[in-house]
Structure formats: structure tokens, C-alpha cells
């Protein structure tokens, strides 16, 4: 069974059994009209989704039970709240919700009717809307500071066959409330996977969302992540996207600043190897005055890999006193690696401070020589400099066990003893 047949089959299975059949049908008809995102669309010019052509699904592949011991190493801290999904379904026994229900309202997405999209930015989102099997619907009341981070683990377990899963989340955060969310997608098995996760966040006045997306999956894993964030006045959104292994990653982050005095920070680090493809697209829309956005992405590229950075900032006429900063820096370790970086600023207000910059190049020879001149081998000097470059992003991660976990992964990949 190929990808198109799989879509057909999944749709027929899910349409009558879970969620809102009406919404699913509408989304499917839109998907049929717009199709998969492709090179014809400006935002997908560099994004090659041909990996889907090689997908081979087995009708009889059954969902394997995942044991706790198989996911234990992926748990950032056993103390944190944890929601675990396995091959599209919520797994209560692997999850740890403790007394989280006392703070927040939590529903399974498949049992809720969501607000529908006014508009589908691309075919993957329409596909996600028509096929999502599960997800979380989190409602955080006003004045609620979640005492511990919530880690959401999406596990895919397969044998040799392909697995295609879709999740949809909706999180609404009340006034003066705060939550930290860690997202991890991980494949256990040898087959190809494609996972789409569409998450919609609504941030109430003076609320805070810290979102950590730690992407370190198998070499046959493919991921499409969509995050849409609507911020009310004085709210704070901090996004970390750390991508260090996978075959294909595309992140779309859309931020709407809908109230005054909002703060947004998008921080990313990616390290691409072999023929990996990682793509970070973002759009920050400053619709109201006196908001600040800060976007910093650092990338290291090796092998014949490709990375894309596209950061669009729109400052609407109303959005006076906007401050918007963007920077994307890349270190290329091989001649065959490709970086496509594009800042896009559309500014329609006059009293604003905006800056953007993109750099690409190899490691600074001067820096390398300085370290080597003190007796450090070239290999070690390179690792130290690359780690320093990555740490510029990871240092800002406030959850200590997560930061040390990520730094451990990185130092192994960057070969530091």
C-alpha cells in the first residue's frame, strides 16, 4: 500500500469512529483540492517531500505494545508530567499525570470537537485535520502555574514497514498562567515514519508558554510540525526547536501578536548530517503595538545535508514601537552541504526597531589556531567551538535536566570527550 492508498484507508476508518466527521470531511476535500505541499509554492521551494514516494504500508502491521523500559531513556525527568502516545493512540499506562488534573483540564483530542481552521496554510495541515487520531486538549484556568513541565512523548514503534501518524493538540492558557511543554517524537524500529503534529495555542493575558521541541529521531523518521500561537496582551511565548537527527524535519511556527506588550522568542539549533533535510519556517505577525520578538537560529551542516531557514516578520500599520530581531547563523563543515536562508521583513509601521542578519561560513581559522596554539588538537578544538556555537542557544533552556540531556546528545554527536 502506498501513501495515497494509505490516506484513503485511514480516512475511511476514522471518519465514522472518532472526532467530528463533518470537520474531517471538509478538511479532506480541501486536501484533495490543494494536495501535498510542493515546489510550486514559494514557502516549499526547497522542501523535498519525495521520501513519501518510498513509503510502503503493511495492512497487517499491528500496533505493538511499548514497554516502559523502551521509553525510559527518553524521559527527561520521571518527576515531570508525562503524556505518552504510541502509534497514534494515547497510552495511559506509560503516562504520568499525577495530580495534574487538579491544575488543568485535560481531554483526549479524539473526543472533542475543535475549532476549525479558517484557512489551511498547506496540504499537510488539511491532511492532519482530516486524519488526526489523537492528541491533547489542554485547558489551563486563570492564575495557574503548572508546578512541573509536561513532557509529551510520541512513540512510533514499527518493524520494517512505514507508519504514518497524525496528532492534533489544542492548548489554551488562562490569564497569568504558565506552562512548560516538552515535545519528543521517537521511532523505535527500522521502518520509515511520517508524523504530523498540529498544535494550536491560545495564550491569555500575561500568560507564559515555554515550548521545547527536542527533535532527535531515527534516520528514517520524517516530521512535520505546525504550531500556531495566538498571544493576548502581555503574554510571553518562548519556543526552542532543537533538531539533531531525523531524515526530514519541517517546522512551521506561526505567531500572532494580538495584544500589546507581548514577548516572543524563537530559538533554534539544528545539526544536519549525511543527506538529512531540516527546515525551519516561521511567521511572526506583529498586529499590535509595543511587542518584542526575538528569533535566533544556529545551524551546523555536514555531509550532503540541507537546511532551510525562513523567518518572516510582518509589522502591521498598527504595531508601532515594535521591536523585532532575527538572526540565523550557519557553520558549514562540508562543501556538499546546503543552506538556504531567507529573512523576510514586511514593515508597515514607522516607529519600529527591526534587524535581521544571516551568516554562513566555516569555522573561524583564527579561533581554531588560538585553541591549537595552546596544545588542543584540531579535532578537539573544532568540537569545542561547535559546542560553544550550539550552547549559545541551549544555554537559554531553563529546565536543567532537559538542557543537560540535550547537551549530552550534542556533545556525543560533536565528539567531545
Amino acid at each position: 500500500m502506498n501513501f495515497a492508498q494509505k490516506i484513503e484507508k485511514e480516512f475511511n476508518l476514522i471518519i465514522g469512529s472518532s472526532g467530528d466527521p463533518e470537520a474531517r470531511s471538509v478538511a479532506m476535500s480541501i486536501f484533495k483540492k490543494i494536495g501535498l505541499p510542493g515546489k510550486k509554492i514559494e514557502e516549499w521551494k526547497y522542501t523535498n517531500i519525495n521520501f513519501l514516494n518510498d513509503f510502503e504500508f503493511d495492512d497487517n502491521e499491528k500496533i505493538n505494545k511499548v514497554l516502559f523500559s523502551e521509553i525510559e531513556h527518553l524521559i527527561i525527568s520521571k518527576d515531570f508530567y508525562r503524556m505518552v502516545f504510541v502509534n497514534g493512540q494515547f497510552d495511559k499506562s506509560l503516562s504520568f499525570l499525577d495530580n495534574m488534573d487538579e491544575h488543568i483540564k485535560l481531554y483526549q483530542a479524539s473526543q472533542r470537537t475543535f475549532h476549525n481552521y479558517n484557512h489551511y496554510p498547506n496540504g499537510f495541515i488539511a491532511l492532519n485535520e482530516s486524519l488526526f487520531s489523537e492528541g491533547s486538549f489542554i485547558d489551563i484556568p486563570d492564575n495557574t502555574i503548572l508546578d512541573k513541565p509536561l513532557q509529551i512523548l510520541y512513540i512510533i514503534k514499527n518493524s520494517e514497514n512505514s507508519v504514518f501518524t497524525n496528532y492534533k493538540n489544542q492548548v489554551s492558557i488562562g490569564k497569568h498562567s504558565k506552562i512548560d511543554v516538552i515535545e519528543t517524537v521517537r521511532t523505535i524500529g527500522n521502518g520509515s515514519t511520517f508524523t504530523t503534529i498540529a498544535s494550536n495555542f491560545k495564550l491569555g493575558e500575561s500568560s507564559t508558554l515555554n515550548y521545547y521541541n527536542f527533535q532527535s529521531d531515527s534516520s528514517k523518521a520524517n516530521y512535520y510540525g505546525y504550531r500556531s500561537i495566538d498571544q493576548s496582551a502581555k503574554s510571553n511565548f518562548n519556543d526552542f526547536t532543537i533538531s539533531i537527527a531525523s531524515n526530514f524535519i519541517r517546522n512551521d511556527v506561526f505567531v500572532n501578536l494580538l495584544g500589546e506588550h507581548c514577548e516572543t522568542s524563537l530559538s533554534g539549533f539544528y545539526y544536519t548530517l549525511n543527506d538529512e533535510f531540516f527546515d525551519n519556517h516561521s511567521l511572526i505577525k506583529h498586529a499590535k503595538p509595543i511587542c518584542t520578538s526575538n528569533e535566533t537560529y544556529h545551524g551546523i551542516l555536514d555531509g550532503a545535508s540541507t537546511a532551510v531557514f525562513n523567518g518572516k516578520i510582518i509589522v502591521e500599520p498598527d504595531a508601532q514601537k515594535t521591536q523585532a530581531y532575527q538572526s540565523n547563523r550557519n557553520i558549514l563543515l562540508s562543501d556538499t552541504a546546503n543552506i538556504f536562508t531567507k529573512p523576510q521583513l514586511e514593515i508597515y509601521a514607522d516607529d519600529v526597531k527591526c534587524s535581521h542578519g544571516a551568516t554562513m561560513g566555516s569555522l573561524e581559522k583564527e579561533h581554531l589556531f588560538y585553541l591549537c596554539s595552546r596544545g588542543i588538537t584540531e579535532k578537539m578544538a573544532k568540537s569545542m567551538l561547535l559546542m560553544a556555537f550550539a550552547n549559545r542557544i541551549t544555554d537559554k533552556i531553563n529546565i536543567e535536566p532537559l538542557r543537560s540531556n540535550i547537551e549530552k546528545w550534542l556533545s556525543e554527536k560533536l565528539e567531545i570527550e
Partner: protein
Amino acid sequence: MALLKISNLHAEIDGKPILKGLDLMINKGEVHAIMGPNGSGKSTLAAVLTGREGYTVTDGSVEFNDSDLLALSADERAKAGIFLAFQYPVEVPGVSNANFMKAAVNEARKYRGQETLDAFDFIQLMKEKAALVEMDSSFLSRSVNEGFSGGEKKKNEIFQMAMLEPSLAILDETDSGLDIDALRIVSNGVNKLRASDRAIVVITHYQRLLDYIVPDFVHVLYKGKIVLSGTKELALILEEKGYEWLEGEQS
């Protein structure tokens, strides 16, 4: 046995000859000063000795402890005991001074077959050496040279020298950018590092430094060669007469 023996050294950058037959011999325990006009090749000599990329040695030889120095990579030269205090130390963002020195000291110890230092001993060592140049220990946790003032960068170079205990230290204009007090502090630090098994080469434009760090020998590097060598009095003559008169002396 000479610690360093440079014979007929010729070196070029981008096909442009800079060192043109330089001879120099340095023994353990000695302090040598190298003076000479701007652009005469002093920093080039330091770069060639420490193995910086981009310099081609076209003729001559350099022996360090009786073995071919030029065959070694930059890090091997450092581990063999060569140290350069840079004229323009670079800023290395994101690498802390402490981590940098820890890696360097432990690499050198491994190279010499010594055990690596544990965290506690290492911090003690850093504090002790920082005190030598009156460097506040807050500098140790900062990124290497990042945001350091000119003088602080120079102090940091001497701090690193103290940490690494080289057998040959080359100080390239370590006095430039230092205020009067810092010059005294740094010079005192260097003097404390004078030792019978260590040679120091100070490259400078000013006699003033040599009042603090009194050299055993003074050399004039002019147009890529050592054209004149003498004792510390030579520096006074140069201070008075400049370098132009050397044009006539050379032949």
C-alpha cells in the same frame, strides 16, 4: 645544547617573502628581546614558530630540543613546550576561559604521560596563576577574551603562559595596550616565570618594558633578518637612534 636553533630561515606569505635568512639561537634560562621596525617580520617569526597556517617555509631549519620543530602541528608544538602570547589575542565566544585552560592543561599532561587534574586541583591552580597577574577570578568563567579590554587580554595571555609552563615563551608586544600599573604587574608576572629551564623571547618596540623584564640579549630584526645582536645596552642605542642607521650598517 641549544633550546631553539633557527638557521637561515626563509618564509613567505602568499608568495611574498617575509623572513629572508634568519638565524637565532636560544638557550634555556635566557631572556631574549627582539626589536625591529613595523613590518620587519617579528610576528611572522612567531607565527612560523607556532605553526600558524598560511606561512610557507621555503628554506632553512628550526630545531627545538634537537628535533625538527617545523614537522610538528600547532598543538604538538604547544605540547612540546612552545607558547606564544599573541600580539592580538582573538575573542572566542562561548568557550569559557576555565574550560579552555582545562582542555589545554590536560592535553599537555596527557602528552607528557601525567595524570589529568581533577576539578578541585584545577580550580586551585587557576586561582593561583590568576593571582600572578592580578587577574580577578571572575575572568575565568567568562568567554575567552570576549569583551576583555586590550590590557585584560594581554594579562590573560600571561595567565595562560603561567598555566601551561612552557619551556619557550614568545611574548609578542605584550606591553602594548597596558597602562603603567598593568605593565608593572604583567612584567612582575613574567619575571616570576623566569626559570633556569625556560627561555623567554620578548618582542617589543619599547625600551621601557626591558627596564622591567631585563633581557640577556637584544636582537634587531630588520627586513626579515637578525641584523644586529647585543646585550641590553643595544636597546638604549635603538631608542636613541631608531632603525634607519641600520640601512648603512647592513651589507
